[in-house]
């Protein structure tokens, strides 16, 4: 440890004012504080109330994403084996998956990192460690077939328009990874939706569970339609299904969630209220089901939890401390509405099979307003009690 410290100090002198590498100071600073405890305290939100600083928090999130990432790599390979009819082997699947997934992650970090450094250098602020999270989050929300140039374009948009435009980490209204994904979703819809995108084998088509459920004709059983397509609650929970890289396994997300809750990085209120909102809305639909209604209505509410990107979104996206509501009451409202909107978009809107991304972005926009009313209300109550 001592050795690293000394070496860094030595190198660091090169980056000081007036030295040749002065302009690249942010780069040095990022490395230095990533390895060692930073010498400064955080000047603006998100604040954390213990010894950890923002960088530590973000590292925790990256750690929490490890199970989802590893599983995503394995599953990408596993789906390729299934589609090609190859014999299954664990390491074979890992290798095939890594061949597809690693380049996506690398491009996401490289292209996004470039913008991050560019802004840090011109604006003379430090490199935002939030990017470590954004880069991997974004990669995990993409289908394994995504063209790499689109990954680069998407993350560039996410970093610049999702974050830097608002002034950098802590000032952004929306989750940058979701902004990046939404951009790709609207700009290049053919590569990120439909039934050809989810398995990395050319010409192979398989619809995701949500697409199958949405397409089930009136009067038929949606559970049966899913079973016919090879989907049941168990394989959707474990995640052995086609989908975006990191989102298929609800189990991997739960492991990540446990870690985030133990380290107190994520707000349990947001996650719990997301789930409640989802169950409430899908419960209403379930109650209304009938032969003249969409078959999707009759899906058992708890199935929604393991389908599509909900688990991933609720655990890793909705809980983003910067773009979520910041008051406790606000968090309940914010999460609950994310759940409600997710189901509404999934079931009723025919154009979008998945609603998690849009629901979270939408509620990101409302989070400050929710907080405002919560605080106002609180002040009013205090005043009333006083008088």
């Amino acid at each position, binding site marked *: 440890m001592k050795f690293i410290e000394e070496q860094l100090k030595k190198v660091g002198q090169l980056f000081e004012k007036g030295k040749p590498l002065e302009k690249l100071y942010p780069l040095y600073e990022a490395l230095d504080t990533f390895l060692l405890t930073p010498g400064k305290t955080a000047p603006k939100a998100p604040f954390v109330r213990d010894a950890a600083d923002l960088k530590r928090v973000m590292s925790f999130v990256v750690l929490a994403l490890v199970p989802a990432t590893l599983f995503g790599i394995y599953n990408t390979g596993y789906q390729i084996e299934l589609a090609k009819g190859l014999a299954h082997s664990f390491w074979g699947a890992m290798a095939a998956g890594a061949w597809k997934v690693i380049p996506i992650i690398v491009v996401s970090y490289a292209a996004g990192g470039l913008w991050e450094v560019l802004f840090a250098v011109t604006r003379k602020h430090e490199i935002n460690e939030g990017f470590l999270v954004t880069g991997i989050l974004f990669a995990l929300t993409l289908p394994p077939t995504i063209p790499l140039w689109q990954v680069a374009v998407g993350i560039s948009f996410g970093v610049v328009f999702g974050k830097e435009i608002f002034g950098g980490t802590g000032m952004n209204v929306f989750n940058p990874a979701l902004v990046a994904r939404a951009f790709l979703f609207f700009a290049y819809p*053919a590569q990120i939706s*439909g*039934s050809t995108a989810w398995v990395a084998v050319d010409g192979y*088509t398989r619809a995701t569970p949500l697409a199958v459920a949405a*397409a089930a004709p009136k009067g038929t059983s949606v559970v049966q339609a899913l079973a016919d397509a090879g989907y049941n609650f168990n394989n959707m929970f474990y995640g052995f299904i086609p989908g975006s890289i990191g989102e298929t396994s609800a189990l991997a997300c739960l492991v990540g969630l446990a870690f985030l809750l133990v380290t107190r990085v994520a707000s349990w209120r947001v996650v719990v209220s997301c789930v409640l909102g989802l169950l409430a809305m899908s419960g209403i639909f379930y109650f209304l089901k009938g032969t003249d209604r969409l078959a999707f209505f009759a899906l058992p509410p708890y199935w929604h939890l393991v389908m599509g990107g909900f688990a991933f979104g609720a655990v890793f996206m909705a809980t983003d401390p910067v773009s979520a509501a910041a008051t406790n009451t606000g968090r309940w409202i914010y999460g609950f509405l994310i759940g409600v909107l997710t189901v509404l978009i999934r079931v009723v809107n*025919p154009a979008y099979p998945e609603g998690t991304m849009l629901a979270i972005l939408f509620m990101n926009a409302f989070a400050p307003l929710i907080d405002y009313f919560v605080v106002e209300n609180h002040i009013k109550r205090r005043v009333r009690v006083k008088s």
Partner: protein
Amino acid sequence: MNTNSTRYTFVFAIIVCVVSGVLLSVFSEGLRPQKELNEELDVKRNILKAVVLKEPVAPKTKAADVLKVYDSKIEEVVIDDKGNVVEGKKPKQLTGKDTNLFPLYLYKEGGQVVAYAFPVVGQGLWSTLYGYLAVEADATTIRGITFYKHGETPGLGGEIEKEWFQNNFKGKTIYSLKDHKLTPTIVVKGKAADVVSKDELSYHVDGITAATLTGKGVTDLMDRWVRVYDAYLSKLRKI
């Protein structure tokens, strides 16, 4: 001069109204023939496109040429819901009240009917789709389809205006001579060859990736209008 008196204000307002009124009437009336010609031309271009006369409808074609081709080759008739031609009526005279009268365009080459074209309208995902469908002289085979107006998502549902999609319809049949039943074209999800059997390929076309609902709109529209015009077309088939 007191420009704020009531009298002055009235006089001024009247002068402004009269001047601009006269100006606009002159413009509107003077340009009327040209405007009507344009609207007509637009309809005629699309009909010609549907009956697949490639050359004369390229966007740069002169208006006069389009009209010349149209007038020499297209005969306009109106049919009723029994499939009989209504004498003395032209498609132009149809109004919203004529719910059981339909325009039909006969494409003739040297006095022989080569194709029949008729308008198709229906609901897509976001918007109403407008187009023309043309059927060969055998009243069974599709000669061409065109969509000229819609508000679907560009790149997804909007692909219906592209040639690759419209070309898929060519050669499909709207009537099965084997089973003696109508077979309006169905837009499938994915590739038609993967989804339906070989026999059914004659009335199924490839869908558009990630635009299932626009495809469904096209299917519904085909079903509706093929049935309407079958009243007329069925009389032409040699069975």
